């Protein structure tokens, strides 16, 4: 997946949607570091939602019950 992300030259947004839940912070972290053009990365894992944005003051994943 990282290889795909790196292959698209102007990519700004990556979404990952899967079933199940549990911490996916390491995935989010890996994805947003994969390409400097990225502005938003979101991981929807079951009821767990983590998002990273380049504009956020703290570039940390956050958890929310609601998907965007």
């Amino acid at each position, binding site marked *: 997946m990282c*290889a795909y992300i790196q292959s698209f030259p*102007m990519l700004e947004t990556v979404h990952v949607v899967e079933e199940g839940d549990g911490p996916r912070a390491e*995935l989010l972290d*890996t994805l947003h570091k994969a390409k400097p053009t990225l502005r938003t990365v979101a991981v929807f894992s079951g009821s767990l939602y983590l998002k990273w944005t380049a504009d956020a003051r703290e570039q940390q994943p956050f958890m929310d019950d609601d998907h965007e």
Partner: protein
Amino acid sequence: MNDQNLRVLATTSQSICRLLLPEYLRRRDLVLKDTCAGGLTVQLLGLSGYASLGLWSVSPIFRPPEEMYCSIPCGVQEARAAMEFLMYFLLQPSNTRNLRDFHFSLQGTNPLLLTSKFIKMRRLFYVLPLTRLNLSGYDFADYIPPSIILRNGLSCGSCTLTSLVISSDYAFTPGLVQTTMGILRHSPIKNLMVYMVSLNPSQWSTLLGELNMAFLEDVDLEGDIPRPALIRFLIKNKGLRNIIIRGNVRSDRLQPSRSRSQPILPNLLTLRAPLEVCCAIIEQASHSPRLYELQVEVSRLHPHHEPSFLRLVEKLQHFRKLDHLGLHLPPSPASAIPPTDPNDYDWNAHPARVLRQVRTLSFSQRRGRLSYGDIVCPHIPSPIFITLPK
């Protein structure tokens, strides 16, 4: 309080009626919604609710509904009785002059035992001023007879219907199939969904071959659909803007008869389909300059396993408006395909390198989680890390 008492009450005191009726009806499985918002939605959930529809003609507080959700109760006798009450109500124009959205849901009753009721109902679908019709249900068996005739149908449809959803077999059983075909062929339908039906591949071919829907913009089909018939259907309907194809799309040696040089789907905006279907459409849809979003169902992420995906990506460079590419993976077939090291592939030569127009990439796994090997390629050289700000 029985119906007779309620009728007397309704004619003597409207204010008391307004206070009592909603709760009274709710307890009888007839729910009124949005009465304060200017509209009116009626939900019918049990036989007593259907019986209470008779109150409409005597109570001045009832307004004609705009939306109806009719859950036909389980059991042949109850289902027949509910459909009788419903037809009696719907056949009175004063009750239905505002009705636009009608959802009919059959709860587990064998539709072949309701054939006579469906035959009585079919005229309703032509005369009601509906814009949306939803035929759904919970089926516990496949009810579409192999011999069912999907050709022709009645020669009339609805003048107003623009949205049709079919998610149950009874729409294609003997009591209703001619009505369904008439609606499909002769109504100005813009949005069509057909899923959770047990049409076999031959029946899908016949059905799609019969349809030439001049107003169709959005289509969502799920089933065992032969690919040539599907492609021919998509080619015929030039107004299509949004296409979703789900399920097992079968290929065979037949190809669409149209020359590949002829443009298809000039208005296409979004497409979601299995890889083979996407390839077949993109191959011929080079004149779809507006394609904005493509969602592809692939079996694996690794390029070695999906050479046809690589060919698809190569074609996508001609679609300059393409902003969003989505990859949908089936449940992990880990045992079927051996794992492959992503480093075995020359990613610098991947055709995605030229897709500068794509801004959004999405990955989704319908069941389970994406395997870590699919997601993270720790050994891939990442020169971009060097450029990251410290």
